């Protein structure tokens, strides 16, 4: 498997993107949390003000997956801001289908994202990893990532829609 291309996602890719999002969520044992639809992905990623950007890894037709897919990996990212150091690239999702691992696709995707980050003058790339996901943690640490939760004590918090509504009406 030496032939694969990385390219910017297009509107026609939303079905594959959602499929891969669900596969990654399934691996994280969070599949039932995915409520996003293809329609929302289309609107939110390919309108006038995209909420996210996406790159996909594609193989030729003769190398398609067992179920016939040619889009076999993806990364979803967006730009965030740290008032101390400026622009950051935030990696939301990063996944390569199991049967296509070990060919360097993951490394190439990360390389492309890092180039994007450097080109857009981002000071860093942020992302979250589940603490039980030791394979991924090792993969990232080998590439120089540091665990901010562990080293600096940052904890990620969330307020869901129900509580947002309560807060906004106070």
């Amino acid at each position, binding site marked *: 498997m030496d032939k694969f291309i990385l390219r910017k996602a297009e509107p026609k890719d939303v079905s594959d993107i959602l499929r891969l*999002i669900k596969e*990654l*969520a399934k691996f994280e044992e*969070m599949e039932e949390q*995915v*409520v*996003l639809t293809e329609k929302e992905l289309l609107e939110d990623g390919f309108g006038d003000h995209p*909420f*996210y950007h996406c790159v996909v890894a594609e193989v030729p037709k003769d190398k398609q997956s067992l179920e016939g897919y040619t889009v076999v990996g993806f990364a*979803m990212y*967006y730009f*965030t*801001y740290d*008032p*101390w150091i*400026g*622009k950051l690239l935030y990696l*939301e*999702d990063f996944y390569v289908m199991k049967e296509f691992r070990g060919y360097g696709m993951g490394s190439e995707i*990360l*390389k492309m*994202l*890092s*180039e994007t*980050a*450097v080109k857009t003058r981002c*000071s*860093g*790339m*942020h*992302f*979250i*990893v*589940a*603490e*039980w996901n030791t394979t991924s943690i090792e993969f*990232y640490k*080998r*590439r*120089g*990532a*540091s*665990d*901010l*939760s562990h080293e*600096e004590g*940052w*904890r*990620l*918090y*969330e*307020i*869901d*829609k129900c509580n*947002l*509504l*309560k*807060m*906004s009406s*106070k």
Partner: protein
Amino acid sequence: MDFTIRAASLDDCKDISRMILKLAEHDNVSDQIKITQRDLEQDGFSKNPFFHGIIAEVPEHFKSRDGHTKVGYSLYFYTYSSWKGRAVYMEDLYVMPEFRGKGIGKALMAKVSQLGLAAGCTQLNFTVLDWNKSSLDFYRKQGCWDVTSDLGYHCMRCEGDALEHLGGHLHFTDQSQ
């Protein structure tokens, strides 16, 4: 205590910069600030802003001891959850110490929530330092939960040499691979 909550404008960058420094001093990391007032103006108020701001302002007669009427701020931006879609991330929330306990922090957060909901967001995310007990208590009272603690997600960062290396700009072999 009378105060107003409004969207930040270019003119507010001087005060935002002042308060960012105050917040960093509180977190003991003021030497890490590389962003200038000019960077804030460029990054927050051009055609494609990287962040949005809201300001808490008091009338002249309630100004701070050192003469400021802009006494609190929040910086936020829109993010995306691959599970739930549009989300809003609150990067900074700060109220000057002499103006605390008057509902200003809550009002700033309520405004971010309103704006987020109006933009179709279903969640608000932010990070808090584990030693910051008073903030942790405040957020829990608003109905927040600790994703790091409950789901085990850790915040990771890749920067500087590591980022350049990843991007293929530095050419040295990684012995550990």
